[in-house]
Each structure stands twice: as structure tokens, then as C-alpha cells.
């Protein structure tokens, strides 16, 4: 196994050391068995990186993303985000962390269907303590930047998948987080729209220096990232350059 032990880097945005995640399952005999989903994950991600995570279905990609997003907790091991040990933070502190430092983009868009696109984008600002008027105003500007101002008053079910994902990305960006976590953001989109979304990510990464970590099953989506991480059965089996991975392809 070519597990790539990252060099210690105190400036890294994300530092993960010896992280494990397992679920307790009850088997047919009523016995509890441990189902290890992530094993000995060591990972550093610097500010401004664009990382793609790939792996077979069930390999643990989403589990890792949830832990990165402070939505889930590891069974053991350490996770530092912006030099904060996540395990030490209270629920409220984690909520604040998600609000300020992380933007989420999901495969299923996960917009709030009862609200307009504009209000959806404004919600993180409200949770950050902004007032409604200024939140709306900032949300409008954000939608303009993503080319969606025409759809501000539309509800999610009045938007195409690509438009919904753009609204979701606008929402992820509204608090200007240093990190965007995208779990199969193009999974529900056609090739053309997927490309557009990826161009948007690429631009955000290049122009604003936002760190992007995305999970995908598609090679040409992953090709937008500069760094590739391959996960197999809960372990990182490759972590490095896109180009080198192609050489390893037959191995995996």
C-alpha cells in the first residue's frame, strides 16, 4: 500500500491524523459487530488547494466528507480545522465553525423548498447574526455574481437542477468561507451542466483562493482538481498529482 504520510504542516487548513470511523452493527445473532468505515486516515490540506476524492461506492468518501464538515465525529483520531481541534468544540462552536468556515454543496442540492432562492442564500447570514435586510441584500449580490439574479424570487422547485446547484453554491459562498466541501456536486446533473459547475468551482479556487474538496465518480470532473485522493475500503490508497494517478490506474 502506498499510503502517503503527509509531512506535518502547522499552517494547513485541514489536518487529520490517525482517524478511524466505525459503526456498531447488530448481526443476525444479536451480536454487536464493529464495521470499520475509515481506517487510519492521515491527511493535510493546505489553504487554496483543489482536491478531488474518488473511490468505489461504499468506500467511505461521504463518511470522510461528513467528518471534514463537522457534521459527524470520528470514532478515534484527531482533526484540526484552522488549527482548532474539532473534538474539543461544543455543539454551538461546531455550528459556528460550519457557518463561518465551511460551505456545503450536496449532490441533492439540499435547498429549503419553502423559501425563495434569495432567502435560501440569505439563511447562513441570518445564522451568523446579520439582520434580514442586509442578509437579503448580500444574498442578492451573491446571486448576481453567480448569474442567478433573475431567479432570486423563484422557489427551488421552479428551478432546473443546474440552477438549484448554483443557488446552493451561492449559499455556500455567502459567508465567504475558506473551505468548500462538495459531495458529488455534479451527481445529479448532465455533462454540460456539470462542466459549468466545475468551471465555477475552478474559478472560485483560482480567483478567490477558496479551498475546495470534492467527491466524484467521474474522471473528467476530478480532472479539474489539482490533487487527487483515492479511497479504497476506508483507507487512502493514493494521494497526489492527477497525472501520476493515471500511471497507477491499473493497480487500483
Amino acid at each position, binding site marked *: 500500500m502506498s499510503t502517503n504520510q503527509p509531512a506535518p504542516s502547522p499552517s494547513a487548513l485541514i489536518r487529520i491524523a490517525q482517524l478511524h470511523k466505525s459503526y456498531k452493527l447488530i448481526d443476525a445473532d444479536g451480536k454487536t459487530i464493529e464495521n470499520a468505515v475509515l481506517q487510519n486516515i492521515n491527511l493535510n490540506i493546505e489553504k487554496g488547494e483543489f482536491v478531488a476524492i474518488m473511490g468505489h461506492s461504499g468506500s467511505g468518501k461521504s463518511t470522510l466528507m*461528513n467528518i471534514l*464538515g*463537522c*457534521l*459527524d465525529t470520528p470514532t478515534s483520531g484527531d482533526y484540526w480545522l484552522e488549527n482548532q481541534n474539532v473534538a474539543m468544540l461544543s*455543539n*454551538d462552536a461546531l*455550528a*459556528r465553525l*460550519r*457557518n*463561518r468556515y465551511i460551505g*456545503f454543496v*450536496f449532490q441533492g442540492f*439540499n*435547498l*429549503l423548498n*419553502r*423559501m425563495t432562492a434569495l432567502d435560501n442564500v440569505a*439563511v*447562513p447570514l441570518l*445564522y*451568523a447574526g446579520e439582520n434580514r435586510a442586509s442578509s437579503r441584500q448580500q444574498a442578492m449580490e451573491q446571486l448576481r455574481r453567480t448569474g442567478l439574479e433573475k431567479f432570486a424570487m423563484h422557489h427551488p422547485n421552479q428551478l432546473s437542477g443546474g440552477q438549484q446547484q448554483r443557488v446552493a453554491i451561492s*449559499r455556500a459562498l455567502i*459567508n465567504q468561507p475558506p473551505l468548500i466541501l462538495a459531495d458529488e456536486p455534479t451527481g445529479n446533473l448532465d455533462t454540460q451542466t456539470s462542466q459549468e459547475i466545475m468551471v465555477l468551482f475552478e474559478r472560485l479556487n483560482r480567483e478567490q483562493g477558496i479551498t475546495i474538496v470534492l467527491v466524484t465518480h467521474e474522471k473528467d470532473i476530478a480532472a479539474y482538481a489539482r490533487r487527487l485522493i483515492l479511497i479504497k475500503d476506508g483507507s487512502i490508497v493514493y494521494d497526489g498529482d492527477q497525472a501520476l494517478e493515471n500511471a497507477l490506474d491499473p493497480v487500483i
Partner: protein
Amino acid sequence: MRALRMNRLRTGLTMLGMIIGVAAVVLMLSIGQGAQTKINQSIETMGSNLFIVLPGATSSGGLSFGSGSVKTLTVNDAMAIAELPTVNATGPVISGTAQLNFNAKNWSTSITGTTPDYFMVGNWTIEDGSIFSETDVRSAARVVVLGSVTAENLFGTINPVGKTIRITNRPFLVVGVLAAKGQSLSGRDQDDNVFIPITTSERQITGNQFPGSIRYMLVQGKSAETMEEAEIEITQLLRQRHRISDGMENDFTVRNLTAIADVATDTAKILSIVLGAIASISLLVGGIGIMNIMLVSVTERTREIGIRMAIGANRNAILIQFLLEAIMICFMGGMIGVILGIGSAWIISQLIDMLVVITLSMVFLAFLFSSAVGIFFGFYPARKAASLKPVDALRYE
């Protein structure tokens, strides 16, 4: 709040539980308060330190009012009791009904034959003219004092004092009109009544099989402190006068009306509380309805909760969101319920002749109670929502 609007029917039905609960509480409280107020009004007009002495023994079921065959109490008994040191005055009464005429007007009402002291003991005040005198009683004069309702019915706007009316065809001079008193504790209209000297009544109007016997007498004690003593003295005196040997039952009954009034007040209070408590149960049921619907809502919106948590909602934000929804339902339901309660109380007071009293504190209480129900029953579902793990909530389908 948006969620409430999206599910109008469901919210409306949940609110209905609250509306009915609050309306029931307001209605029941106002009925209870009405009963209390009415009793207090009767008691205020009743006179203080009052006994009623009736002929006949106490039956096991309570008083044997108007047992016409028993003629054991006399005017002389009343006079003797009035001399007791603990007694202020007595008012003996014989009564019946009579036909009154003034010009072409006819009115049938109850007639009370009594003495001047009766008006003092019974806490009557004179509106116009005067009451009849001891001399009128001695001479069995044909003079009459009218109750306010009777005066109104016979005379309308004319001043009755100095006019002559006919009572069972005999002319009587109206000497006075009494101030209105309203209903008695037993619900009788005390103002539809005429008063004549007891002697006149006995000899000319009601007649009397046993001369000197009376229907009942009112006795006023000297003070509230000596009421028990007075009751003993009255009993002893009457036993002595009626020659009742030891071990024999009384042939009369002494009742402390002031004590009965106290019991009536207490009863009305208990009635209020019981009515309120019963109505509160419907409020409780409404509250459970809210809890139920909020739990469904939390389950339905688990994914929404997950999304909100992912984009930065902390537990308090989620808790407050759901709690506010519950309180909103309760508050709006409470408001409509209060209006409905007041409305139905008003309708009841119009349809049947019942006094209902709505006080601000009552409305306030209903509001407070409904909001408390909202907080109480909304809290559990809200906390359930807030304590979800973000990852589990997000994964929920």
C-alpha cells in the same frame, strides 16, 4: 412560520383544539364568576347577622319551608325573642298572594304581613314615602308599602305614594315604595312584593286559621360575635314558651342565614374552580394535539433540520424555531378562543337569564395558560429536533 402557512389545514385543525380549550375556559370562568357575583349581590342586600326561625321541626333533608299545617310560631314568640339581650330586632311574617288593582291596572303578587322592624332586619331601604308604623300595626290600618317592581307594574311613571290601591277589593293607602334589591339567594325576585301590617293581613287579607300564628320570622342578632349565643338563647326561649320537655324535639327551626350565605359563597367559588378545571382538560387535550402535530412536523422536516444545521444553525436556533411555531399556534388559538369564549358567554347571557361576568384577569389567565401549554407541549418536539445529529438529520429520507 412559513411552515405554518404551508400546512394551513393541519395548523387550523391543531389550532381548533386550542381555540375550543381556551373558549371553554373563558366561558366556564365567566359562568362561575357570574354565579359568584350574583350570590354576593344577594348577600349584600340580605342584611347582617340574620336568623330565620320557621315553624316545624328540621327534617332530615333540610328545611321544611312553608309547611302550612304547622302553626307553632306566633307573633308573641317574635316579640319575646326581640327582648333577648343578644337579639336586636325581629320581623314576624305571614304571607300569601293577592290581587292588586290601581284604576284599570291589575297585578297579582305576593303579600307580606309584617311589622316595621322587618324592614330594618331585612335591610330594606325606602325609596319614596315611609314604611308603616307601630300604630298602623296596632290599629290594623289599611296601608301598604310597595316593592319596586310591583310599584312599577301598577303605576308606571306615576308616583304611587298617597294613591289608593285595592287589595282583594279593599282600598289601601300607599305610604311608601322600597328601593330595589334584586334576587334573593334562592333566586326569587324580592322586589315584586307588597308589605302591609301583620294585623291587617291576618284579619282582612290572608286570613288565619290559628290567630296569632306566623309563617316565619327574621331575627337580627346584636353582633357577628354573639351569633352562636343568640341561636342558643332563641332555641331555649322558644322551647320554654312552647313547653317542650327535655328530650323532645323542637317544633321550630332556627337557621343562621349569614352562615348559609357563607356556604353559598363557598359553593359558588368551588363551582368556579370545578368548571375551570373541567375546561382546562380540553385545553390539555388541545396541548397534546399540538405536541402530536409538532412531533410529526419534526419528523417530516428532519432533512430541513439537517440542512439548517449544516449551514450554521445551532441547537438553540432549531429549538426556538420549533418552539415558536408551537407557541404561535397556541397564541393565535388562544386569541380566537378568548373572542369565541366571550362571544358565547354573551350569547348565553342573552338567551337564558344568566349572569356571566368576564374580567380582564380571566382573559389574561386564558392567554397565559394557552401560551404555557404551547411552551410545555412544544418543548419536547422542539428539543427532539434540536438534539438531532447533523449527519443523521441530513441522511434522513
